[in-house]
């Protein structure tokens, strides 16, 4: 038992850290339902791909999100199923335009502290000051423009709609960074269930064998 306590202490100590550091990020629940993922995929392919790529995703992978045939055909716009989701702006052009190559988004949801919360906060932290300059609270001076138009949202209703779009985008980014999550967790329940049962049987067997010692 004591060993369990030590181990859980170590585990806790290591898992607590990102939570504490991510405190400034918006505390939203990242959706994972099919509708959100589909809307996110549409935003990603129509907006994000303008500058960023998803080089580890292929168009064929998007079929896993449950699109109808027509939806999927319009999404892939004639691209090959095996084609990667590359940016519409080639890297060298982007470097000339912005001075940097916009980062690849395949792993973005796991590549920043706070993961999807970081991206969500970034997308919804744009503002315009009195002099008409648009900037970002989370990453001041960030070179990415306010693609969702959050800084020019006039009404709370408009802002809520943009926040929903941001949530859809990060839902898609989370899936893109970990497309096997569903398969992994489904298998995980079987494996853990089997092991718990196996452990219980071994415990009974152990008791029985040790009982011979009297």
């Amino acid at each position, binding site marked *: 038992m004591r060993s369990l306590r030590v181990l859980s202490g*170590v585990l806790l100590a290591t898992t607590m850290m990102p939570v504490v550091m991510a405190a400034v990020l918006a505390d939203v629940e990242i959706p994972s339902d099919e509708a959100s993922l589909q809307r996110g995929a549409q935003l990603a392919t129509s907006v994000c791909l303008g500058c960023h790529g998803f080089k580890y995703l292929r168009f064929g992978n998007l079929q896993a999100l449950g699109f109808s045939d027509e939806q999927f055909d319009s999404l892939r716009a004639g691209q090959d199923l095996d084609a990667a989701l590359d940016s519409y702006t080639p890297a060298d052009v982007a470097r000339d335009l912005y001075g940097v190559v916009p980062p690849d988004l395949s792993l973005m949801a796991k590549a920043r502290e706070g993961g999807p919360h970081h991206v969500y906060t970034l997308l919804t932290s744009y503002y315009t000051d009195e002099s008409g300059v648009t900037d970002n609270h989370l990453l001041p001076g960030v070179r990415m423009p306010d693609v969702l138009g959050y800084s020019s949202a006039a009404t709370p209703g408009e802002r809520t709609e943009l926040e929903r779009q941001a949530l859809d985008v990060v839902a898609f980014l989370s899936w893109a960074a970990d497309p096997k999550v569903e398969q992994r967790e489904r298998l995980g329940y079987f*494996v853990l269930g089997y092991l718990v049962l196996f452990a219980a049987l071994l415990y009974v067997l152990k008791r029985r064998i040790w009982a011979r010692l009297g």
Partner: protein
Amino acid sequence: MASTLLAWINRRFPFTSFVRNELTDYPVPRNLSFWWNFGFLAGFVLLLQIVSGVFLAMHYKPDVNLAFDSVQHIMREVEYGWLIRYLHSTGASAFFAVIYLHMIRTLYYGSYRAPRELMWWSGQVLLLLIMATAFMGYLLPWGQMSYWGAQVITSLFGATPMIGEELVLWLRGDYAVGDATLNRFFALHYLVPFVLCVMVLIHLVALHHVKSSNPSGIDLAAKDNIPFHPYFTIKDLFGMVVFAVMFFAVVFFAPETFIEEANNVPADPLQTPPHIVPEWYFLPFYAILRAIPDTLGGAAAMTVSVLIFAAMPLLDRSSLPGGARYRPVYRAMFYLFVMDVLVLGYLGTQAPEAWVVVVGRVATIIYFSIFLLLPWVSKIEERWLRRRGLPTALQATMASERRQKASGV
């Protein structure tokens, strides 16, 4: 037929006697607690790492332009590649967790004492080999933390007097961590585990010679020993499955726990991450490194902080058996040490602000003081305990050990 075959083999290879001596008749103290499970678990994790590692190597490419992509290829396109990789990355952490618990048990119960010094020392070599393997393996995904971690740690060798610069160049094979470094780290990361297996064998041969220690701290009389099989095969197997439940819970439901976010960004030699944090199992030693203002001093202190465990059989001068069980002062020192290591581990995660440095220095002084004061403390403690009168349970234990030695069993 089977018995004829067995006889044929036994004339040429001591199969039956080996199984009998090392398994079915191998005597193990019956009073072992679950703290004695971790050696077996370490063996299990080693096997897991080798098997998953071999399969990863089939798909991985040790090339600075391909390494990061090949890991994503494993994660996304290789059938169950994500499982193989998460087994391996979680396995590294599990290995250290198990090894550290194994060491904590040895320290608490004084299992390093005569005649088990060579077990402790071969274990120390195993620890160093595991650390080296883990360090080199961490470079392979070629993420930002991989790159900068290797850059920082290899640069420490530059503090070596006289040959520092040449040594760093020799280790990296280039002026900075690069393709040459990645290639050799991959080669060595694949090689060292097999050296490790040989060391495990030596560790086991020593174990089967001196037999297992036990909570009482003395060698038990024959009647208190039971055969390894079936009693400990079933006990170790049960422990292994309990361990597997925890291990697979991480693999399937929180596999990114031990993967730094920065390591999901490809290595970029032109961009240093805001702060470079090693894996959790190196954090206490990393905190000691940073606590010393001088690079050479820091690197030396970090090295000594790992190697100093080997001195335990020499530093502990008490003749009382049972480790911390019957020794209140040693027990207090043990818990202080464990807490101190946890504090150091926490400090290792923090950016080196003023308070982190101050607390780090205090914790470092405590870390080394515990070892260095032990020869005197253990002597004085024993004198005090004997003057006060030893607990009856301990007296009985020591008397039974004396009787056994006298009767020569």
